[in-house]
């Protein structure tokens, strides 16, 4: 990805900046130019306003990635999930700071700020949102043990059984 393109996407990658149709209040992420929900799209012309997602969400579905995308080699196997936000949009993102055994559909997560990738050793570093387990009120983060092969297999089985979207 070019530096310029990534830079244009900074507001949404850093801050989950989407937009909202002021005619019907539907929230979009990534932001849209018009609202496809309004019966006549023209109704929403000029009525789309910036809207920042809260960063809260829950796991709608997830998968385990073993064949890493470029730049993610150090993190294999990692969890890629669809996150349902309370504002409406469904986001795709990596879940970090979690042992594979803990991931489950419906678990609450929260946006975290992480390094997404580096353009080689001399290039620009791209940052943006990922997700980490949300803490229940005042509760402590569960302390997990290192990943075992059994845990990997079980998590993979669960992920397969739930990949229904």
């Amino acid at each position, binding site marked *: 990805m070019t530096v310029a393109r990534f830079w244009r996407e900074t507001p949404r990658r850093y801050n989950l900046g989407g937009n909202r149709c002021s005619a019907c209040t539907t929230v979009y992420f990534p932001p849209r130019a018009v609202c496809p929900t309004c019966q006549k799209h023209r109704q929403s012309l000029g009525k789309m306003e910036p809207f920042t997602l809260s960063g809260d969400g829950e796991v709608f579905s997830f998968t385990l990635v073993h064949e890493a995308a470029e730049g993610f080699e150090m993190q294999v196997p990692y969890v890629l999930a669809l996150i349902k936000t309370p504002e409406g949009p469904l986001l795709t993102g990596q879940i970090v700071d979690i042992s594979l055994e803990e991931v489950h559909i419906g678990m609450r997560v929260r946006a975290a700020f*992480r390094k997404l990738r580096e353009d080689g050793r001399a290039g620009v570093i791209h940052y943006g949102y990922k997700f980490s387990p949300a803490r229940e009120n005042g509760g402590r983060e569960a*302390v997990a*043990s290192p990943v075992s092969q059994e845990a990997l297999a079980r998590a993979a089985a669960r992920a397969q059984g739930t990949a229904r979207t």
Partner: protein
Amino acid sequence: MMEQTVGIVSYGAYVPRYRITPQEIGQVWGTDGAAMGKGLNVVRKSVPSPDEDTITISTEALRIALTRGRINPHDIGAIYVGSESHPYAVKPTATVVAQAVGATPYLTAADFEFACKAGTAAIQTCMGMVASRMITYGVAIGADTSQGAPGDALEYSASAGGAALVIGRENLIAEINATESFTTDTPDFWRREGQRYPSHGGRFTGEPAYFRHVGECGRRMMELAQTEPKDYQHVVFHQPNGKFPQRIGKSLGFSEAQMKYGLVTPWIGNTYSGAALIGLANVLDHAKGGDRVLVVGYGSGAGSDAFDVTVTDRIESYDRNHGRQVQEFLDGGVPLSYAMYAKYRGKIHLGGS
């Protein structure tokens, strides 16, 4: 003493999730890691994930601070990030942090560098700007993801973490009554441009460096504030390991009880620019209105910054339960093997270009 009251409006700390023990490190290098850990008073140290660095740690800490203090990011007039592990040699950490918390574009921002005391230097700069009414809020961050060369003594303690303080004039949870510094040219620890790991003067890092600067600065701070050790409920020192702060604290006349909350390095390692600020964050997590706190930072090269702080009653209603408190970082964490640690920290040569 400051003519205009300034102090801490809000704060937040962040420490990455992984931990490694001195035993695990020592086993790889054929040394007695347990004895090493005991000598340093380091039980475990934090290790960042491959996708964490000083920018992400700073951002997480500041986001917690802004939420706790219900601060509008657009009221921030300055962000200074102190670190010796800025991800870029040229391109500021502070601009990414500013953008990521929604504080851009009407603010000034810069990166500070002074070994481990860049964060406390940032506090002093913010104090001056806030007191002179140049800005409403100034943000001072100290964060690092420092590394020791494999097998070097530093490898047993160098860790990752950081904390952010929002400095202002109103709604203070802690007033900073006064600050003092002690600075000399002392070559105890350094890293030349382009070098991956730092070099240090071995035993020279002790007496003429850490102990002299922290001791002189702490003593002078108490002289200026007309205080004695018994006037403080808490004391926080820079803590490159768990032993140095205990020794200097004792020689200045502080008790174990006064040092209790300010000492965090034994459970997370030496977070460099983050160390004194995370210690202060832990003190604020536990403090009561009226508590007095002495903070003495230290940076190699060398200098110390001290702060005489009084916690206000506002701390009782302040939302310090939002986000993780420091104690959770001290208790929690996921253990790593040396192999995983070496992979995460880029110590494995992958070949190719």
